[in-house]
């Protein structure tokens, strides 16, 4: 058995072109993709969203205090004295100014560019696609929102958010603004309860709400993991091709004639696939990590989990190699078989999300994709990178183990009995 593994590894080692392909190419791709997509998706230092927001202010701030006073007296039936005191207090709060401050704050500066425009102009620009959305501050906004805050009702007028069509950019903006309004109301509420005389509205932090409490999953991490797994898949095709060569060059016959159990041949293929996949993925991950700092400041537990998952993937892929090897030994046309193997691998790669992030694909394809070994691996690793929670990887691990056993069984079942091999 050792001889079989040694032979396979040695032959692979001799094939420098192949070796360079599976080791260097994924790293190059990670680098290239990383830089190519840096402007699009980056989520750390660099900003990528640049939302063009038109703000149309229809509120007359100068009139606001008079209107508030009027409302308090007429609608809330407060005495003149009481109303005056509240208006006095409200004088220091300028909701419209707060909104502008928020939109132009340092946090949001990178995301949003504010254009103060007339409504008609703004509408045209949005239609032309120059702007992403319009925020309208309606007439009476200041008075209404202050009134609402004091009496604890929801305001009768609210900000209007308009957009031409729903895009991820504009909906992101909506959630920012929505967050602001909630926050504003909340601040007023607090203030009222505390009865603080000097309202200091704290700005909410800009940006998307974070999913849970985990780390973010970066594009660089995605590329590293996806390329590693993709080229591991290609390795399986290579192993199958080399089996084809062994058959064509008659060495398989010679092996049969040595009386060594042909199963050794199959298991040798599986073990060498495991070795190759492990070497390859770990190499790609470690080199990418050192070049791009893919997984900064992660715990030992994280790395152990990562390696465990890579081992699991290598097992599954060795099962796939067993199936391919067994088929190679059975078919008449090895070239056709190799072509089909490559197709299967590419298919796995595509629907498993190794070429493009899986959520770009249609739903039904995503569902199938999550059943491919590489797809499962990606899903599992994405989870692990974000949450580092054992519970979330148990199910995919069991599934992967199941697929490994299934593949191995198919490989063993298809493997031709001694003497029957062509």
């Amino acid at each position, binding site marked *: 058995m*050792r*001889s*079989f593994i*040694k*032979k396979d590894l*040695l*032959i692979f080692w*001799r*094939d420098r072109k192949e070796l360079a392909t599976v080791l260097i190419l994924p790293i190059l791709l990670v680098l290239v993709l990383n830089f190519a997509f840096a402007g699009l998706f980056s989520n750390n230092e660099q900003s990528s969203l640049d939302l063009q927001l038109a703000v149309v202010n229809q509120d007359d701030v100068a009139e606001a205090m008079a209107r508030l006073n009027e409302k308090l007296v007429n609608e809330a039936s407060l005495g003149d004295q009481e109303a005056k005191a509240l208006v006095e207090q409200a004088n220091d709060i300028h909701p419209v100014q707060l909104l502008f401050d928020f939109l132009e704050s340092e946090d949001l500066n990178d995301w949003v560019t504010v254009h103060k425009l007339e409504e008609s102009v703004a509408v045209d620009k949005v239609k032309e696609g120059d702007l992403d959305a319009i925020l309208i501050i309606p007439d009476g906004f200041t008075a209404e929102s202050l009134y609402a805050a004091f009496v604890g009702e929801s305001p009768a007028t609210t900000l209007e958010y308009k957009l031409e069509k729903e895009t991820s950019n504009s909906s992101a903006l909506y959630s920012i603004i929505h967050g602001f309004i909630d926050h504003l109301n909340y601040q007023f509420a607090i203030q009222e309860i505390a009865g603080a005389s000097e309202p200091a509205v704290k700005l909410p932090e800009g940006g998307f709400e974070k999913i849970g409490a985990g780390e973010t999953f970066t594009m660089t991490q995605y590329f590293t993991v996806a390329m590693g797994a993709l080229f591991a898949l290609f390795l399986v095709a290579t192993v199958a091709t080399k089996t084809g060569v*062994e058959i064509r*060059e*008659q*060495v398989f*016959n*010679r*092996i*049969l*004639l*040595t*009386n*060594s159990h042909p199963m*050794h041949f199959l298991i040798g293929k599986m073990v060498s696939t495991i070795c190759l996949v492990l070497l390859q993925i770990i190499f790609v991950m470690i080199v990418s990590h050192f070049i791009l700092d893919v997984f900064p400041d992660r715990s030992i537990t994280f790395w152990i989990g990562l390696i465990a998952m890579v081992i699991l993937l290598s097992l599954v892929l060795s099962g796939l190699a067993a199936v391919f090897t067994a088929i190679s030994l059975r078919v008449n046309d090895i070239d056709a078989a190799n072509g089909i193997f490559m197709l299967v691998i590419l298919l796995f790669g595509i629907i498993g999300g190794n070429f493009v992030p899986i959520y770009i694909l249609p739903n039904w394809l995503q569902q199938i994709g999550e059943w491919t070994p590489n797809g499962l691996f990606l899903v599992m690793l994405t989870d692990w990178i974000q949450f580092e929670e054992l519970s979330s990887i148990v199910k995919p691990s069991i599934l992967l183990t199941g697929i490994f056993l299934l593949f191995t069984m198919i490989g063993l079942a298809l493997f031709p009995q*001694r*003497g*029957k091999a*062509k």
Partner: protein
Amino acid sequence: MLETINLSKSFKGKKVVQDVNLYLNNGESVGLLGPNGAGKSTTISMISTLIKPTSGEIKLNGVNTIDKPGEIRRISGVVPQELALYQELSAYENLKFFGAIYKMKGKELEKGIQQALEFVGLEARQKDLVKTYSGGMKRRLNIAAALLHKPKILILDEPTVGIDPQSRNHILETVRMLNQKDGTTILYTSHYMEEVEQLCDRLYIMDHGKIIAAGTKAELLSILSTEDTIKVELNKMDETFVEYVKTIEGVRKVEASHSQMKIIATKGSNLISKLVHLAEKHHIQLINFHTETPSLEDVFLHLTGSKLRN
């Protein structure tokens, strides 16, 4: 020690080997001669257990090998027609791998490898990758790989096809040595008449999947004809001499013209020495004579109506 009984093989209903009966005695060197496509490789594949016969039996020392291929695999070495080597490995690495899966270990394996390499004259280049070898060297290594486990029977399938004369001689010499010095039983397949004539004690001639003739070379030649034709050139012609020649035992027909005589006689009648004797008596000098003996080529032609090499 090894025999086949009505061995037959069909591929998709087409009979490629039909009722082949052949045997190998211990220490013999046997040739299997036939044109391309005769079914030699198929026969050998069945004997070496790589493919199963459609019908018929193969017996090793009386035991059927078809269901129990272990023993024949253990004691036989097969040199396939195609190279069966890893091109990406060196000669040494190839032999080490094949030796290891023959369950040879350590010193025994190392010694086996070096002996095999020495036998085929490749010790000097053993560290080079096979893909850098010439065709002849690859063929020699192909043989070495079959010798590692010191087989009692060596089966060679056209081991000299398409290589230079030097390598060819080397291979023929190697096979002869194995047979004569080590007592290895040889089954040698070829479509080259000369090789089989040189190497083999006995031979089988195969065509269209059937054995059409078998025996020693002399036996095969005698199939062709029971007569020899002898042409004699004399310094003078003598009527009485001609009459005397006609009375020699075995002579069937004499044609005389000018100074030449053509004598047709039964095979093996020891005509020449009698002829020489007679001529001396009549004071006639024999200037020149030659026997027109049929070749195996002629035998093949006679049996099949076609040439051996096409």
